[in-house]
Protein backbone atom coordinates (compact mmCIF):
# COMPACT_ATOMS: atom_id res chain seq x y z
CA UNK A 1 0.00 0.00 0.00
CA UNK A 2 1.91 3.07 1.18
CA UNK A 3 5.47 2.92 -0.08
CA UNK A 4 8.66 3.77 1.77
CA UNK A 5 8.96 7.11 0.01
CA UNK A 6 5.40 8.02 0.97
CA UNK A 7 6.16 7.24 4.60
CA UNK A 8 9.23 9.41 4.39
CA UNK A 9 7.09 12.31 3.17
CA UNK A 10 4.63 11.75 6.03
CA UNK A 11 7.47 11.68 8.54
CA UNK A 12 8.87 14.90 7.13
CA UNK A 13 5.60 16.73 7.47
CA UNK A 14 5.26 15.38 11.02
CA UNK A 15 8.78 16.56 11.86
CA UNK A 16 7.96 20.02 10.54
CA UNK A 17 4.81 20.15 12.66
CA UNK A 18 6.72 18.97 15.74
CA UNK A 19 9.32 21.67 15.20
CA UNK A 20 6.60 24.30 15.09
CA UNK A 21 4.70 23.05 18.13
CA UNK A 22 7.58 22.05 20.43
CA UNK A 23 10.67 23.75 18.97
CA UNK A 24 11.18 26.09 21.92
CA UNK A 25 10.23 23.60 24.67
CA UNK A 26 13.23 21.27 24.90
CA UNK A 27 10.93 18.29 24.50
CA UNK A 28 11.63 14.64 25.30
CA UNK A 29 10.50 11.89 22.93
CA UNK A 30 8.88 8.61 23.96
CA UNK A 31 7.95 5.79 21.56
CA UNK A 32 5.41 3.05 22.25
CA UNK A 33 6.52 -0.53 21.50
CA UNK A 34 7.01 -1.62 18.79
CA UNK A 35 5.93 0.51 15.83
CA UNK A 36 5.92 3.73 17.83
CA UNK A 37 9.61 3.31 18.54
CA UNK A 38 10.40 2.96 14.84
CA UNK A 39 8.50 6.18 14.09
CA UNK A 40 10.10 7.96 17.06
CA UNK A 41 13.57 6.92 15.84
CA UNK A 42 12.81 8.16 12.34
CA UNK A 43 11.51 11.48 13.68
CA UNK A 44 14.58 11.90 15.90
CA UNK A 45 16.81 11.40 12.86
CA UNK A 46 14.88 13.96 10.87
CA UNK A 47 14.84 16.55 13.65
CA UNK A 48 18.52 16.18 14.43
CA UNK A 49 20.53 15.19 17.46
CA UNK A 50 19.96 18.39 19.43
CA UNK A 51 16.23 18.75 19.05
CA UNK A 52 15.33 16.40 21.89
CA UNK A 53 16.92 16.91 25.26
CA UNK A 54 17.72 13.22 25.95
CA UNK A 55 17.90 9.87 24.16
CA UNK A 56 14.66 8.29 23.04
CA UNK A 57 12.48 6.77 25.78
CA UNK A 58 10.54 3.59 25.12
CA UNK A 59 7.28 2.37 26.65
CA UNK A 60 6.04 -1.18 26.86
CA UNK A 61 2.43 -0.75 27.83
CA UNK A 62 1.67 -4.48 28.17
CA UNK A 63 1.09 -4.20 31.92
CA UNK A 64 -1.20 -1.18 31.59
CA UNK A 65 -3.62 -2.64 29.07
CA UNK A 66 -7.28 -3.07 29.90
CA UNK A 67 -7.75 -6.58 28.53
CA UNK A 68 -5.81 -8.73 31.02
CA UNK A 69 -8.96 -10.24 32.52
CA UNK A 70 -10.16 -11.03 28.99
CA UNK A 71 -7.15 -12.45 27.22
CA UNK A 72 -4.36 -12.78 29.77
CA UNK A 73 -0.72 -11.86 29.29
CA UNK A 74 0.51 -10.23 26.13
CA UNK A 75 3.55 -11.51 24.29
CA UNK A 76 6.80 -10.27 25.71
CA UNK A 77 8.54 -7.19 24.48
CA UNK A 78 11.51 -5.30 25.88
CA UNK A 79 10.90 -3.46 29.16
CA UNK A 80 10.04 0.22 29.30
CA UNK A 81 13.07 2.47 29.43
CA UNK A 82 12.82 6.18 30.13
CA UNK A 83 16.39 7.47 30.44
CA UNK A 84 15.24 10.79 31.96
CA UNK A 85 12.92 12.25 34.56
CA UNK A 86 9.55 13.23 33.08
CA UNK A 87 8.75 15.71 35.86
CA UNK A 88 7.82 19.17 34.50
CA UNK A 89 8.95 18.25 30.98
CA UNK A 90 7.17 18.51 27.66
CA UNK A 91 6.82 15.03 26.21
CA UNK A 92 6.22 13.94 22.65
CA UNK A 93 4.46 10.58 22.74
CA UNK A 94 4.75 8.65 19.47
CA UNK A 95 2.84 5.68 18.09
CA UNK A 96 2.40 4.22 14.63
CA UNK A 97 -1.39 3.96 14.40
CA UNK A 98 -4.13 5.59 16.47
CA UNK A 99 -7.35 3.61 16.36
CA UNK A 100 -9.42 2.91 19.48
CA UNK A 101 -7.19 5.08 21.70
CA UNK A 102 -6.77 2.33 24.28
CA UNK A 103 -3.02 1.98 23.72
CA UNK A 104 -2.54 5.71 24.25
CA UNK A 105 -4.70 5.57 27.39
CA UNK A 106 -2.43 2.83 28.74
CA UNK A 107 0.70 4.76 27.75
CA UNK A 108 -0.53 7.91 29.52
CA UNK A 109 -1.20 5.91 32.68
CA UNK A 110 2.27 4.44 32.56
CA UNK A 111 3.91 7.82 31.88
CA UNK A 112 2.24 9.32 34.92
CA UNK A 113 3.60 6.50 37.07
CA UNK A 114 7.04 7.85 36.17
CA UNK A 115 6.21 11.39 37.27
CA UNK A 116 4.27 14.52 36.36
CA UNK A 117 5.08 15.85 32.90
CA UNK A 118 4.31 19.47 32.04
CA UNK A 119 2.53 18.38 28.87
CA UNK A 120 2.12 15.41 26.54
CA UNK A 121 1.75 15.86 22.80
CA UNK A 122 0.60 12.87 20.78
CA UNK A 123 2.08 12.22 17.35
CA UNK A 124 1.06 9.26 15.18
CA UNK A 125 1.93 8.23 11.64
CA UNK A 126 -1.64 7.16 10.85
CA UNK A 127 -4.83 8.27 12.53
CA UNK A 128 -7.87 6.21 11.67
CA UNK A 129 -10.93 8.36 11.22
CA UNK A 130 -13.38 5.84 12.63
CA UNK A 131 -13.26 3.50 15.56
CA UNK A 132 -12.22 5.87 18.34
CA UNK A 133 -13.48 4.56 21.66
CA UNK A 134 -12.00 7.17 23.97
CA UNK A 135 -11.72 10.94 23.89
CA UNK A 136 -8.16 10.70 22.54
CA UNK A 137 -7.02 12.33 19.29
CA UNK A 138 -3.64 12.94 17.74
CA UNK A 139 -2.10 16.42 17.98
CA UNK A 140 0.10 15.58 15.03
CA UNK A 141 -0.78 12.94 12.44
CA UNK A 142 1.10 12.00 9.28
CA UNK A 143 -2.14 11.02 7.61
CA UNK A 144 -5.78 10.42 8.48
CA UNK A 145 -7.39 7.50 6.73
CA UNK A 146 -10.79 5.88 6.60
CA UNK A 147 -10.93 2.08 6.76
CA UNK A 148 -13.66 -0.47 7.29
CA UNK A 149 -13.93 -1.77 10.86
CA UNK A 150 -12.60 -5.23 9.99
CA UNK A 151 -9.54 -3.82 8.24
CA UNK A 152 -6.23 -3.48 10.03
CA UNK A 153 -3.37 -1.22 9.14
CA UNK A 154 0.03 -2.41 10.20
CA UNK A 155 3.50 -0.94 10.14
CA UNK A 156 6.31 -3.34 9.33
CA UNK A 157 10.06 -2.80 9.43
CA UNK A 158 12.50 -5.02 7.64
CA UNK A 159 15.10 -2.30 7.36
CA UNK A 160 12.50 -0.15 5.60
CA UNK A 161 9.22 1.08 7.09
CA UNK A 162 6.14 -0.05 5.25
CA UNK A 163 2.40 0.11 5.82
CA UNK A 164 0.19 -2.82 5.08
CA UNK A 165 -3.59 -3.08 5.11
CA UNK A 166 -4.96 -6.44 6.16
CA UNK A 167 -8.57 -7.08 5.31
CA UNK A 168 -8.83 -10.60 6.64
CA UNK A 169 -10.28 -10.25 10.13
CA UNK A 170 -8.58 -13.43 11.31
CA UNK A 171 -5.02 -12.15 11.08
CA UNK A 172 -3.85 -9.90 13.86
Amino acid at each position, binding site marked *: MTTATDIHALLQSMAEEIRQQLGDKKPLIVGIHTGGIWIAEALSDLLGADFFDAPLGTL*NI*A*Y*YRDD*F*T*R*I*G*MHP*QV*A*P*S*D*LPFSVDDRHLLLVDDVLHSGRTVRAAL*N*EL*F*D*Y*GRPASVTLAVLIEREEGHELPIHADIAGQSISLAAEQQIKLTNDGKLQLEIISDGSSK
Partner: protein
Amino acid sequence: MTNNQLTESGRLRHFLTIEGLKRPLLTEIMDRAEQFSSISHQQVKKVPLLRGKTIVNLFFENSTRTRTTFELAAKRLSADVMNLNISTSATSKGESLLDTLHNLESMHSDMFVVRHNQSGAAEFIAQHVAPHVSVINAGDGCHAHPTQAMLDMFTIRRHKHHFPDLRVAIVGDILHSRVARSQIQALAILGVGEIRVIGPKTLLPTDCQSLGVHVYHDMEEGLHDVDVVIMLRLQHERMQGALLPSAREYFKRYGLTEEKLRCAKPDAIVMHPGPINRGVEIASTVADGPQSVILEQVTHGIAIRMAVMSMTLGAQSEQEAQA
Protein backbone atom coordinates in the same frame (compact mmCIF):
# COMPACT_ATOMS: atom_id res chain seq x y z
CA MET B 1 4.11 -35.50 40.62
CA THR B 2 1.81 -34.91 37.66
CA ASN B 3 1.83 -31.71 35.74
CA ASN B 4 -1.56 -30.40 36.64
CA GLN B 5 0.14 -27.05 37.06
CA LEU B 6 -0.14 -26.44 33.32
CA THR B 7 -3.20 -25.62 31.22
CA GLU B 8 -4.02 -27.69 28.16
CA SER B 9 -2.12 -25.20 26.03
CA GLY B 10 0.95 -25.51 28.26
CA ARG B 11 0.57 -22.24 30.17
CA LEU B 12 1.33 -22.02 33.85
CA ARG B 13 -1.93 -22.34 35.80
CA HIS B 14 -0.41 -23.11 39.20
CA PHE B 15 3.25 -23.00 40.17
CA LEU B 16 3.89 -25.99 42.41
CA THR B 17 7.21 -27.46 41.37
CA ILE B 18 10.00 -27.02 38.84
CA GLU B 19 9.87 -30.72 38.09
CA GLY B 20 8.52 -31.52 34.64
CA LEU B 21 8.62 -27.95 33.31
CA LYS B 22 10.31 -27.17 30.02
CA ARG B 23 13.15 -24.77 29.38
CA PRO B 24 11.10 -22.20 27.38
CA LEU B 25 8.73 -21.77 30.31
CA LEU B 26 11.55 -21.20 32.79
CA THR B 27 13.08 -18.73 30.35
CA GLU B 28 9.74 -16.94 30.00
CA ILE B 29 9.49 -16.57 33.78
CA MET B 30 12.95 -14.98 33.85
CA ASP B 31 12.24 -12.73 30.85
CA ARG B 32 9.01 -11.51 32.41
CA ALA B 33 10.84 -10.88 35.67
CA GLU B 34 13.34 -8.81 33.72
CA GLN B 35 10.47 -6.65 32.44
CA PHE B 36 9.01 -6.27 35.90
CA SER B 37 12.39 -5.19 37.26
CA SER B 38 12.08 -1.97 35.27
CA ILE B 39 9.08 -0.96 37.41
CA SER B 40 11.45 -0.14 40.24
CA HIS B 41 12.61 2.84 38.14
CA GLN B 42 9.13 4.33 38.25
CA GLN B 43 8.11 6.92 40.80
CA VAL B 44 4.96 4.90 41.37
CA LYS B 45 6.35 1.38 41.67
CA LYS B 46 3.17 -0.33 40.59
CA VAL B 47 1.46 -1.60 37.47
CA PRO B 48 -2.32 -2.07 37.31
CA LEU B 49 -2.14 -5.60 35.87
CA LEU B 50 -3.84 -7.49 38.72
CA ARG B 51 -6.18 -4.73 39.88
CA GLY B 52 -9.23 -6.21 41.52
CA LYS B 53 -7.61 -9.61 42.11
CA THR B 54 -7.40 -10.95 45.65
CA ILE B 55 -4.32 -12.89 46.67
CA VAL B 56 -4.12 -14.77 49.95
CA ASN B 57 -0.77 -15.55 51.49
CA LEU B 58 -1.52 -18.77 53.31
CA PHE B 59 1.43 -19.39 55.57
CA PHE B 60 1.27 -22.48 57.76
CA GLU B 61 4.97 -22.04 58.47
CA ASN B 62 6.74 -18.80 59.32
CA SER B 63 8.83 -17.01 56.78
CA THR B 64 9.27 -13.29 56.89
CA ARG B 65 11.32 -12.84 53.75
CA THR B 66 9.31 -15.08 51.45
CA ARG B 67 5.99 -13.74 52.69
CA THR B 68 7.11 -10.14 52.44
CA THR B 69 8.41 -10.48 48.89
CA PHE B 70 5.23 -12.27 47.80
CA GLU B 71 3.20 -9.52 49.42
CA LEU B 72 5.27 -6.79 47.79
CA ALA B 73 5.08 -8.54 44.42
CA ALA B 74 1.28 -8.73 44.65
CA LYS B 75 1.05 -5.09 45.68
CA ARG B 76 3.28 -3.95 42.83
CA LEU B 77 0.83 -5.69 40.52
CA SER B 78 -2.01 -3.77 42.24
CA ALA B 79 -3.67 -6.87 43.68
CA ASP B 80 -5.26 -6.89 47.13
CA VAL B 81 -3.37 -9.08 49.57
CA MET B 82 -4.35 -10.87 52.73
CA ASN B 83 -1.77 -12.47 54.96
CA LEU B 84 -2.84 -15.44 57.02
CA ASN B 85 -0.46 -17.13 59.38
CA ILE B 86 -1.98 -20.36 60.44
CA SER B 87 -0.14 -22.63 62.79
CA THR B 88 -0.82 -26.23 62.05
CA SER B 89 -2.67 -28.22 64.62
CA ALA B 90 -1.30 -31.69 65.21
CA THR B 91 -4.58 -33.42 64.54
CA SER B 92 -6.84 -33.65 61.50
CA LYS B 93 -4.64 -31.45 59.35
CA GLY B 94 -6.26 -32.53 56.11
CA GLU B 95 -9.71 -31.63 57.23
CA SER B 96 -8.91 -28.27 58.75
CA LEU B 97 -6.88 -27.36 55.70
CA LEU B 98 -9.79 -27.94 53.35
CA ASP B 99 -12.15 -26.09 55.63
CA THR B 100 -9.82 -23.11 55.71
CA LEU B 101 -9.57 -23.28 51.97
CA HIS B 102 -13.27 -23.32 51.25
CA ASN B 103 -13.80 -20.43 53.61
CA LEU B 104 -11.21 -18.38 51.78
CA GLU B 105 -12.69 -19.33 48.43
CA SER B 106 -16.01 -18.00 49.63
CA MET B 107 -14.30 -14.65 50.00
CA HIS B 108 -13.64 -14.68 46.23
CA SER B 109 -9.91 -15.17 46.39
CA ASP B 110 -8.12 -15.57 43.07
CA MET B 111 -4.83 -16.99 44.29
CA PHE B 112 -3.36 -18.85 47.23
CA VAL B 113 0.32 -18.55 47.98
CA VAL B 114 0.97 -21.55 50.18
CA ARG B 115 3.77 -22.27 52.60
CA HIS B 116 3.52 -25.49 54.61
CA ASN B 117 5.84 -27.80 56.50
CA GLN B 118 4.29 -30.88 54.89
CA SER B 119 5.55 -31.97 51.47
CA GLY B 120 2.76 -31.93 48.93
CA ALA B 121 0.56 -29.39 50.74
CA ALA B 122 0.45 -26.93 47.84
CA GLU B 123 -0.27 -29.72 45.38
CA PHE B 124 -3.08 -30.96 47.65
CA ILE B 125 -4.61 -27.50 47.80
CA ALA B 126 -4.29 -27.07 44.03
CA GLN B 127 -6.28 -30.26 43.55
CA HIS B 128 -9.11 -28.96 45.70
CA VAL B 129 -9.46 -25.30 44.77
CA ALA B 130 -12.18 -23.87 42.56
CA PRO B 131 -11.25 -23.80 38.87
CA HIS B 132 -10.62 -20.05 38.78
CA VAL B 133 -8.10 -20.10 41.63
CA SER B 134 -4.33 -20.37 41.11
CA VAL B 135 -1.98 -21.84 43.69
CA ILE B 136 1.67 -20.94 44.12
CA ASN B 137 3.95 -23.08 46.22
CA ALA B 138 6.00 -20.91 48.56
CA GLY B 139 7.75 -23.94 50.03
CA ASP B 140 6.35 -27.30 51.11
CA GLY B 141 8.23 -29.53 53.56
CA CYS B 142 11.35 -31.01 52.02
CA HIS B 143 9.74 -31.08 48.60
CA ALA B 144 9.95 -27.87 46.59
CA HIS B 145 10.39 -24.13 46.65
CA PRO B 146 10.04 -23.23 42.98
CA THR B 147 9.97 -19.42 43.19
CA GLN B 148 13.18 -19.46 45.25
CA ALA B 149 14.82 -21.66 42.60
CA MET B 150 13.67 -19.31 39.84
CA LEU B 151 14.96 -16.18 41.56
CA ASP B 152 18.27 -17.99 41.97
CA MET B 153 18.34 -18.88 38.26
CA PHE B 154 17.49 -15.26 37.46
CA THR B 155 20.36 -14.06 39.65
CA ILE B 156 22.76 -16.50 37.98
CA ARG B 157 21.61 -15.39 34.53
CA ARG B 158 22.12 -11.73 35.40
CA HIS B 159 25.73 -12.43 36.28
CA LYS B 160 26.75 -15.36 34.12
CA HIS B 161 24.46 -15.27 31.08
CA HIS B 162 25.03 -18.66 29.43
CA PHE B 163 23.95 -21.65 31.53
CA PRO B 164 25.66 -24.48 29.57
CA ASP B 165 29.10 -22.98 30.27
CA LEU B 166 28.61 -22.99 34.02
CA ARG B 167 29.73 -25.12 36.90
CA VAL B 168 27.46 -24.68 39.92
CA ALA B 169 28.07 -26.06 43.43
CA ILE B 170 25.38 -26.35 46.10
CA VAL B 171 26.81 -26.73 49.60
CA GLY B 172 25.22 -28.00 52.78
CA ASP B 173 22.12 -29.88 53.86
CA ILE B 174 20.87 -31.06 50.47
CA LEU B 175 18.85 -33.89 52.00
CA HIS B 176 16.34 -31.72 53.85
CA SER B 177 16.41 -28.78 51.48
CA ARG B 178 13.41 -28.06 49.26
CA VAL B 179 15.43 -25.16 47.89
CA ALA B 180 18.27 -27.43 46.74
CA ARG B 181 15.85 -29.91 45.17
CA SER B 182 14.14 -27.19 43.13
CA GLN B 183 17.48 -25.59 42.25
CA ILE B 184 18.93 -28.85 40.95
CA GLN B 185 15.85 -29.42 38.79
CA ALA B 186 15.96 -25.88 37.40
CA LEU B 187 19.71 -26.00 36.73
CA ALA B 188 19.30 -29.30 34.89
CA ILE B 189 16.37 -28.02 32.79
CA LEU B 190 18.37 -24.91 31.86
CA GLY B 191 21.23 -27.14 30.72
CA VAL B 192 23.90 -26.11 33.22
CA GLY B 193 27.23 -27.73 32.35
CA GLU B 194 27.94 -29.30 35.71
CA ILE B 195 25.96 -29.42 38.95
CA ARG B 196 27.83 -30.36 42.11
CA VAL B 197 26.58 -30.98 45.62
CA ILE B 198 28.93 -30.69 48.55
CA GLY B 199 28.23 -31.87 52.08
CA PRO B 200 28.64 -34.60 54.68
CA LYS B 201 27.24 -38.03 53.80
CA THR B 202 24.52 -37.68 56.42
CA LEU B 203 23.11 -34.60 54.70
CA LEU B 204 23.19 -35.76 51.09
CA PRO B 205 20.41 -37.82 49.54
CA THR B 206 21.42 -41.37 48.65
CA ASP B 207 20.12 -40.99 45.10
CA CYS B 208 22.34 -38.01 44.31
CA GLN B 209 23.98 -39.56 41.27
CA SER B 210 20.64 -40.32 39.68
CA LEU B 211 19.77 -36.63 39.93
CA GLY B 212 22.63 -36.04 37.50
CA VAL B 213 24.83 -34.24 40.00
CA HIS B 214 28.40 -34.82 41.07
CA VAL B 215 28.91 -35.49 44.76
CA TYR B 216 31.75 -34.12 46.86
CA HIS B 217 32.41 -34.54 50.55
CA ASP B 218 35.51 -32.37 50.51
CA MET B 219 34.70 -28.69 50.15
CA GLU B 220 37.96 -27.51 48.55
CA GLU B 221 37.78 -30.23 45.96
CA GLY B 222 34.12 -29.53 45.23
CA LEU B 223 34.58 -25.79 44.86
CA HIS B 224 37.46 -26.14 42.42
CA ASP B 225 36.81 -23.97 39.34
CA VAL B 226 33.10 -23.38 39.96
CA ASP B 227 31.31 -20.27 38.67
CA VAL B 228 28.53 -20.22 41.23
CA VAL B 229 28.54 -21.25 44.90
CA ILE B 230 25.13 -21.71 46.48
CA MET B 231 25.24 -22.07 50.26
CA LEU B 232 22.29 -23.57 52.11
CA ARG B 233 21.17 -22.69 55.59
CA LEU B 234 22.08 -25.24 58.22
CA GLN B 235 18.89 -25.90 60.09
CA HIS B 236 19.57 -26.09 63.79
CA GLU B 237 17.01 -28.80 64.29
CA ARG B 238 19.20 -31.13 62.21
CA MET B 239 21.97 -30.79 64.69
CA GLN B 240 19.84 -32.28 67.43
CA GLY B 241 19.08 -35.23 65.19
CA ALA B 242 22.68 -36.44 65.59
CA LEU B 243 23.31 -35.88 61.90
CA LEU B 244 26.06 -33.42 62.73
CA PRO B 245 28.70 -33.17 65.42
CA SER B 246 28.54 -29.43 66.18
CA ALA B 247 28.15 -26.07 64.50
CA ARG B 248 31.84 -25.35 64.99
CA GLU B 249 32.88 -28.62 63.42
CA TYR B 250 30.49 -28.02 60.54
CA PHE B 251 31.89 -24.55 59.89
CA LYS B 252 35.40 -25.93 59.86
CA ARG B 253 34.58 -28.44 57.14
CA TYR B 254 31.74 -26.89 55.16
CA GLY B 255 31.54 -23.24 56.15
CA LEU B 256 32.36 -20.90 53.28
CA THR B 257 35.41 -18.81 54.17
CA GLU B 258 37.47 -16.51 51.98
CA GLU B 259 40.15 -19.17 51.91
CA LYS B 260 37.83 -21.90 50.64
CA LEU B 261 36.23 -19.50 48.17
CA ARG B 262 39.63 -19.04 46.53
CA CYS B 263 39.24 -22.59 45.14
CA ALA B 264 36.39 -21.34 42.97
CA LYS B 265 36.88 -19.18 39.88
CA PRO B 266 38.03 -15.65 40.75
CA ASP B 267 34.76 -14.20 39.44
CA ALA B 268 32.53 -16.81 41.08
CA ILE B 269 29.38 -15.49 42.73
CA VAL B 270 28.20 -16.54 46.19
CA MET B 271 24.50 -17.12 46.80
CA HIS B 272 22.36 -18.02 49.81
CA PRO B 273 18.57 -18.26 50.06
CA GLY B 274 18.64 -16.77 53.56
CA PRO B 275 18.36 -16.41 56.42
CA ILE B 276 22.11 -16.75 56.78
CA ASN B 277 23.78 -18.17 59.87
CA ARG B 278 26.97 -16.16 60.08
CA GLY B 279 29.82 -18.32 61.28
CA VAL B 280 27.87 -21.55 60.77
CA GLU B 281 27.65 -22.08 57.03
CA ILE B 282 29.15 -18.80 55.84
CA ALA B 283 31.76 -16.39 57.17
CA SER B 284 30.69 -12.76 57.50
CA THR B 285 33.60 -11.64 55.32
CA VAL B 286 32.20 -13.76 52.49
CA ALA B 287 28.53 -12.96 53.06
CA ASP B 288 29.35 -9.24 52.98
CA GLY B 289 32.18 -9.59 50.46
CA PRO B 290 32.44 -8.47 46.84
CA GLN B 291 31.44 -11.86 45.41
CA SER B 292 28.25 -12.11 47.44
CA VAL B 293 24.94 -11.53 45.60
CA ILE B 294 22.78 -12.52 48.56
CA LEU B 295 20.89 -9.23 48.84
CA GLU B 296 20.40 -9.08 45.09
CA GLN B 297 18.62 -12.41 45.38
CA VAL B 298 16.09 -10.80 47.70
CA THR B 299 15.43 -7.99 45.21
CA HIS B 300 15.08 -10.44 42.35
CA GLY B 301 12.58 -12.42 44.41
CA ILE B 302 10.04 -9.63 43.97
CA ALA B 303 10.31 -9.56 40.17
CA ILE B 304 10.23 -13.36 39.87
CA ARG B 305 7.11 -13.55 42.04
CA MET B 306 5.45 -10.82 40.01
CA ALA B 307 6.19 -12.83 36.88
CA VAL B 308 4.78 -16.05 38.26
CA MET B 309 1.69 -14.41 39.75
CA SER B 310 0.81 -12.57 36.56
CA MET B 311 1.51 -15.60 34.36
CA THR B 312 -0.70 -17.94 36.37
CA LEU B 313 -3.60 -15.50 36.63
CA GLY B 314 -3.09 -14.59 32.98
CA ALA B 315 -3.37 -18.25 32.01
CA GLN B 316 -6.70 -18.35 33.85
CA SER B 317 -7.96 -15.45 31.73
CA GLU B 318 -6.67 -17.10 28.56
CA GLN B 319 -8.55 -20.24 29.43
CA GLU B 320 -11.76 -18.38 30.09
CA ALA B 321 -11.37 -16.52 26.80
CA GLN B 322 -11.08 -19.80 24.93
CA ALA B 323 -14.00 -21.41 26.72
